[in-house]
């Protein structure tokens, strides 16, 4: 039962990633593309956790933690760039 649930969840999240990629490609403005990238980060955290569950290995959470940290930092750097036109003031 669990392996079927993991595969179903993987399917849903891959659909979500495809939709985000679509928004990343067509997104009319730059901020739209930033939202798409941010959502892709969050979806990939879920995908890595699912991979860890599928392989039964508890050490994948470190990758997920790193992606969460880097995703937040990169989103705020992009936003700062749009707000000021400069990353470091």
């Amino acid at each position, binding site marked *: 039962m669990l392996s079927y649930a993991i595969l179903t969840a993987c399917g849903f*999240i891959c*659909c979500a990633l495809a939709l*985000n990629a679509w928004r990343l490609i067509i997104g009319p403005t730059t901020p739209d593309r930033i939202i798409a990238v941010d959502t892709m980060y969050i979806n990939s955290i879920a995908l890595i956790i699912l991979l860890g*569950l599928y392989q039964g290995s508890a050490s994948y959470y470190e990758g*997920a933690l790193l992606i969460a940290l880097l995703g937040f930092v990169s989103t705020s750097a992009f*936003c700062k760039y749009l707000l000021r036109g400069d990353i470091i003031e």
Partner: protein
Amino acid sequence: MTVFLEAVVSVLLVLGSIVMLVGSIGLAKFPDYFTRLHAPAKSSTLGVGCILIASMIFFSVQLGHVNFKEALISMFLLITAPVAAHMLAKAGLHYKVNMKDNTQNQQLAKKAYLHQSPDEK
């Protein structure tokens, strides 16, 4: 692993992934920038939270001791998701993205762009 726990983990996984899918559909479907911002900001916390709780239960049973590591990630996301949404909204306001035509109180967006109070001229 008992059947009951396995069922709980499976339901949480499917529920979390459905929530994330709904958020991404909202991102793809909504008409303008600010409405698009709503969907990922809300679904990311609950969706990843459900999947992480499922993973926490699974590994606590499998390793035989209590495992809170995934809870750290969900706490981190709970703190950062609204901050990221706020910064994205500020960036969109600064970029002067187009709004949906029937958005009410569009004059407030100009006030917010200038950091003024609404009754200031």
